[in-house]
Every structure is written in structure tokens, then in C-alpha cells.
């Protein structure tokens, strides 16, 4: 494998607010290689934007504690002084944002904003910068660029504006483009165009792209790898194909099952994820996802799972206390159209689980993967698997 372009190592970002400490990003690690695309998926409040803003040092002005490392070309961006980091922003690493109308300055012509992006990093003179601006507009597929370069952002349509933003980001041929919800504000047909554009540019310019979204459909198209984030953590990471064919985390299942597909049977109900994202100040005990997980067990409320590799799936890790075998079975059930309650009843509360399909071997789990569960594995599988909440017996779940 080649040297990663950007490597995020155990990044933690905490904001100190009047209401308490917000754990926006709680120990995430990922990396991306040159020319590849990484998709980061999650709900609002999952910390996906914060992690990329932190990459560019744009969270420094808030009262934030930033720990960990972000290595770019061997240099750590977290500890880099501001003036050096500024040289990288808009230059080696560029970022585009969600709403291009509010993200472009309404009072300056588009050409001027593009020229500024160029001139701030290269003193080439106005005429050259202007020419470059026109060239950039052409690059992103805006017709009649010579006229349009003198227009204001509000004179462009939504899709065109996002192209302008992309043009601005590309002004200095960045090695990495971070796209934060680039298509969320656009309608579906335009979405497709923008995604196609990004792919095209990536091929031509050889740049890496991190695309951040809540929409799995978007990343399905263009990502090589996907990281699913929840409550500031990465809960599952794999290449795109694995995520879509062999997802291992209940949250990921929820995301996948809530996408309406043209090919689904008409009477098949969507399966939403119940509840709301947790508070990042007072996070749930144990597994962060447990209040919303249909397959929760008593133990999950106490034990905090860590990312662990998934057997038989290279490059695939997940943070979940259910055993891989159970997870696979549940997913197959979901794919077949069965309901979570059914599946829970069948797999999560079943008295006997075949040995080998249970808890992963303690040694293989990533750092500190729930000592208690490994302990339970040693004492007896039965004990771990049978636990239900508050004494209500196995005999009483037909109420669904």
C-alpha cells in the first residue's frame, strides 16, 4: 500500500461551552491515499464536519481542545503554527461547503473571489489570475466563462454555484479536496452532475477527495472507502463494496435500510432508526448507540465497544459488541425484508449460540475491547447471551 496522503491519528476535539464539554470528535483515526476518495457518513452531530474543519485548523478559534495528530505529507497539522497552516489552506488542501449561495461572498464578483484564491498563494499578477479564473470556470463546466466571471453569485443557479465553489477550491491544484455535504442543498439531478464532475476532476487532477455526507447514496457512487461516524466516533469502516454488501454495525444497517430503493417491493416498509442523536456532552453509557439499537443487551449499556477488525473482510472494522456471526445473520435477515424485532428475538435473545460464532477472541479486539465481555466469554457464553432487561423473561417477547 502506498504512503497515505493524510493520516488522522486518534483525533479528539472537545469544545468547552457554558453547558459543559462537547465531545465533538472522540478518538477517530482514518487515512486516505493519493487519488482516492473517502466517504464519511453520519447524522448531524456525528462529528463528521468537525473532524475535517479541524484538518484545516478552522476549529482553532473556538474554545477547543484538540488532541491527536493529523499528518499531511509527514507534518502534523494539529500542532502546526497558524501561518504555516494558512499556506496549506486553499493550496494543498481545499474545502468546499454545503450551501454555495451563503458560502460565496454576495458582494464580490465571482471572478474576483476566484482571483483572490489564486493570488493569496501565488503572486502571479492580476491579468494572469483573471485568466486562471476563466480557465477554472471552464474546467468545472460553466458555459460562457468569460462573461460569467464578472457576475455575482446570486446570478448563478444552485448547481452552477457549487461548480464555482469547486472551481475556487481547485484554484491551486490541491492534493486533497474536502467536500462537506456538497450536494445536500441541490436537487437530485444536479447532485448527479456535481458528483460526476468531482469524479472527473479527480481523474484528471489526481487529487484525493474526502466527501462528507449523511446520504449513503452519494458515497456509493464515488467513494473508494467509507467511514461511518456516530457520536464522534467511527463505528464502522470498510471499502464501499463491503459496507453495502456486508455491513456489520446496526447503525449502518439502519442507514442502509432507510434508503428507498427503486428495486424494493412496493409494500416493503422503510426501517427508520428510532430516536435522536445523543447529546455530545452527556453521552450514553456503554455503547453510544445502545439507546437506539434494536439489538441491545444489558451488557451494551455498560461496555464501550472499540473498533475491531471483522473476520473474513480485509480492511473492514466495526465497533459493536454483538458477535460477527450474529451480525451477519441479522443483516441477511434485514436484507430479506424481515423486521428488526423479529431478528432481535431470534438472534439476540436466543439461548444457545454456536461456539465460534460468539464473541471475538479477546486478543484480536482493538485496544481495550470491553474486558467484561471477554471475561464473560471465558465464564460462559450462555450467561452473556441470555441477558435481557429488567427480568422480563424470554417468554414474554411476543408482544411486538
Amino acid at each position, binding site marked *: 500500500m502506498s504512503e497515505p496522503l493524510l493520516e488522522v491519528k486518534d483525533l479528539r476535539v472537545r469544545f468547552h461551552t457554558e453547558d459543559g464539554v462537547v465531545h465533538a470528535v472522540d478518538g477517530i483515526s482514518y487515512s486516505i491515499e493519493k487519488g482516492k476518495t473517502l466517504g464519511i457518513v453520519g447524522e448531524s452531530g456525528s462529528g463528521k464536519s468537525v473532524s475535517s474543519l479541524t484538518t484545516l485548523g478552522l476549529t482553532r478559534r473556538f474554545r477547543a481542545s484538540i488532541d491527536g495528530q493529523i499528518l499531511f505529507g509527514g507534518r502534523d497539522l494539529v500542532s502546526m503554527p497558524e501561518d504555516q497552516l494558512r499556506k496549506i489552506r486553499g493550496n494543498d488542501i481545499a474545502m468546499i*461547503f454545503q450551501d454555495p449561495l451563503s458560502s460565496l461572498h454576495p458582494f464580490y464578483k465571482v471572478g474576483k473571489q476566484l482571483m483572490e484564491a489564486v493570488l493569496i498563494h501565488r503572486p502571479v499578477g492580476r491579468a494572469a489570475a483573471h485568466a486562471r479564473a476563466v480557465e477554472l470556470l471552464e474546467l468545472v463546466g460553466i458555459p460562457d466563462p468569460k462573461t460569467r466571471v464578472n457576475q455575482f453569485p446570486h446570478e448563478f443557479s444552485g448547481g452552477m454555484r457549487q461548480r464555482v*465553489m469547486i472551481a475556487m477550491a481547485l484554484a491551486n491544484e490541491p492534493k486533497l479536496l474536502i467536500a462537506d455535504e456538497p450536494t445536500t442543498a441541490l436537487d437530485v439531478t444536479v447532485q448527479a452532475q456535481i458528483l460526476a464532475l468531482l469524479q472527473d476532476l479527480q481523474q484528471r487532477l489526481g487529487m484525493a477527495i474526502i466527501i462528507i455526507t449523511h446520504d449513503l447514496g452519494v458515497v456509493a457512487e464515488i467513494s473508494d472507502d467509507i467511514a461511518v461516524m456516530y457520536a464522534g466516533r467511527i463505528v464502522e469502516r470498510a471499502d464501499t463494496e463491503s459496507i453495502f454488501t456486508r455491513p456489520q454495525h446496526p447503525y449502518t444497517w439502519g442507514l442502509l435500510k432507510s434508503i428507498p430503493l427503486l428495486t424494493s417491493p412496493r409494500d416493503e416498509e422503510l426501517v427508520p432508526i428510532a430516536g435522536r442523536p445523543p447529546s455530545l456532552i452527556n453521552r450514553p453509557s456503554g455503547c453510544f448507540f445502545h439507546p437506539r439499537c434494536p439489538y441491545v443487551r444489558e451488557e451494551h449499556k455498560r461496555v464501550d465497544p472499540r473498533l475491531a477488525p471483522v473476520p473474513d473482510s480485509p480492511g473492514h472494522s466495526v465497533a459493536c459488541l454483538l458477535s460477527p456471526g450474529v451480525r451477519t445473520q441479522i443483516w441477511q435477515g434485514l436484507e430479506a425484508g424481515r423486521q428488526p424485532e423479529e431478528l432481535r428475538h431470534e438472534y439476540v435473545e436466543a439461548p444457545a449460540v454456536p461456539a465460534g460464532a460468539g464473541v471475538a477472541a479477546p486478543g484480536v479486539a482493538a485496544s481495550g475491547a470491553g474486558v467484561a465481555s471477554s471475561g464473560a466469554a471465558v465464564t460462559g457464553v450462555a450467561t452473556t447471551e441470555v441477558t435481557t432487561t429488567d427480568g422480563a423473561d424470554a417468554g414474554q417477547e411476543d408482544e411486538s
Partner: protein
Amino acid sequence: MGRYIIRRLLWVIVLLIIVSIVTFLIFYLLPSADPAALRAGRSPNQQLIAAIRHSLGLDKPLYVQYWRYMKGVILHFDFGYSYEYSQPVRAMIVQRLPATISLTVGAVIIWLATGLPTGIISAIRSRTLLDRTTMGGSLLAISAPVYWLGLVALYLFANDIGKVHIFDGANTYTGLTSNPGRWFGSLLLPWLVLAASFSAFYARLLRSNLIDTMSEDYIRTARAKGLPERRVIGRHAMRSAITPIVTVLGLDIGTLMGGAILVETVFNIPGVGRLAYDGIQNADLPIIQGTVLFGAFFIVIANLIVDIAYAYLDPRVRYS
């Protein structure tokens, strides 16, 4: 744009006519004084009052008086003669104009030079001790009545009656052309007093606009482009935050051109505001009418200029 301006100018004329009618009616319908009686002195014989009334044209019906007045204004730009001083109103206003302009321009420069930087610094360092101090101080400056502030300023700093002899005191105004040094010295304290509350207001306004603007998405974009913070604030944030300031500035200048009555009174500056005040005291309708129209004209024109400027500053507004 040209048609828009022409349409607005026509409205200016209509507005001024309405203002003149209202002023006229207020003067006659509310119990003010009888100008003929005021001129005639005590226990005059009745024919004297009648004669004065006739010479002032007060014995004609209201609409005739109004018509004669407006004819004079529109055709000859003649605003009549003051009842009190028997001098042409236009000449009196024109004579007072330089003082009012001097007062206004100087105050504007001072309040922009002090208020804007204060607003910017407070916005950048918002919620720090510095910010709270400046905003608290500005609240005081806005709350202090101008007349009181003028008196206090004189009692503290005037070189004739003040505790510390720094500035020229009241009643020292001379024209710019006759004695530039004295002109400047006599206006320093009035400028400071007049500018005080405006400066505070503009500082607060800019601070809040800037804080709002700084949280806009395009500021984040600017930073993401790698711009130094100085440029982000100076070019991107200020460009947006300054627009309401320009609007308010235009209106304030327009209003002040009608005369800053209180400051002119305390410092005895012979401006248009003082003239208006004297006119009201003396029930001198031509003066009242003239200064009101004059003031209204400036305010209306200021509104127009501000609207045009706003379209220039904010391109989104242009094509509506």
C-alpha cells in the same frame, strides 16, 4: 436605474409639498401666537395691528397665503420675509448654513474615526473585558442627553469657565473664511459633544453587524482559502457589515443638516437649527416654514442617496 432616480426625485417634490402644507396647517390650527400681535407691542391701537396683519399678508384666507408662499418658493426660490427680523428667509438660512455644515462634517469625521474602530475591535474581542468596557461606555454616551453633555463638557473643559482649560468655550464660533484657526478651535468641543452619542451608536451597530457577519458561511470559506485573518475581517466581513452603517450614516447626515438644535444652542453656534428654534419661539412662520422645508429637503435627498448607495453596495438589490 435612471428611471428609478427620476421617479424618486418626483416623489421628493411631492413630499416637500406635503411637508409645507402640514407645517402651514399646524402653525395656524394649533394655538401658537399671533405674529401681528407679537410685532405690535403692548396695547397697540387696533389699526396698528390690522396694518401689521395686512403687511404680513395675514388677513388673507389660508389657502391664498399658502398659494402665494408656494408660488414664491417654486418660481423664484423665495421663502418670504421673517416676521420677526423683516429679512429674507432664504438669505438668513444661507447665512447660517456654513455653521451647520461645519458642525455636521466635523462631527461625522470624528464619530466615524472613533466609532468604527471601536466597533471592529469590540467585535473581534467580543465578550472580553475590553469589549464590555467599550460597550458599557458607549451605552452611557448614548444615554447622556446632548444638552447636558454639552453643559458638562463646557464646565469641565472650556477655557473660560471650565475646570481644565483645554477647548474654546461657547460663543466663540467664527467663520472658516474669516479665521480658520479660531473656526477650528471653536468647533472642537461641539464636535466632540455632538459626535459622542453617534460614535457610541455606530460602534455598537458595527459591532453587532460584524459579529453577525463573522458567523456567515462565506467567512468560513474565506478562511478556508487560506486568507490571513486581517484580510478576512477587513475585506470580507467589513464589506458586508458596513452596508447598514452607510445607510444610517446617510440618514444621520441628512437629519443633522437640518441643524443640531441642542448643540447649537449650548455653544451658541449660528446654525440653521438655532434659527429654527428662534423661529418657533417667535411664532415666525416664514422662518419655521423655511427651515422645516430645508430640513425636509435634506432628509429626503439623503434617503434617496442612501437608497442608491445601497444598491451600489449590495448587488443583490439591484434588479428589483
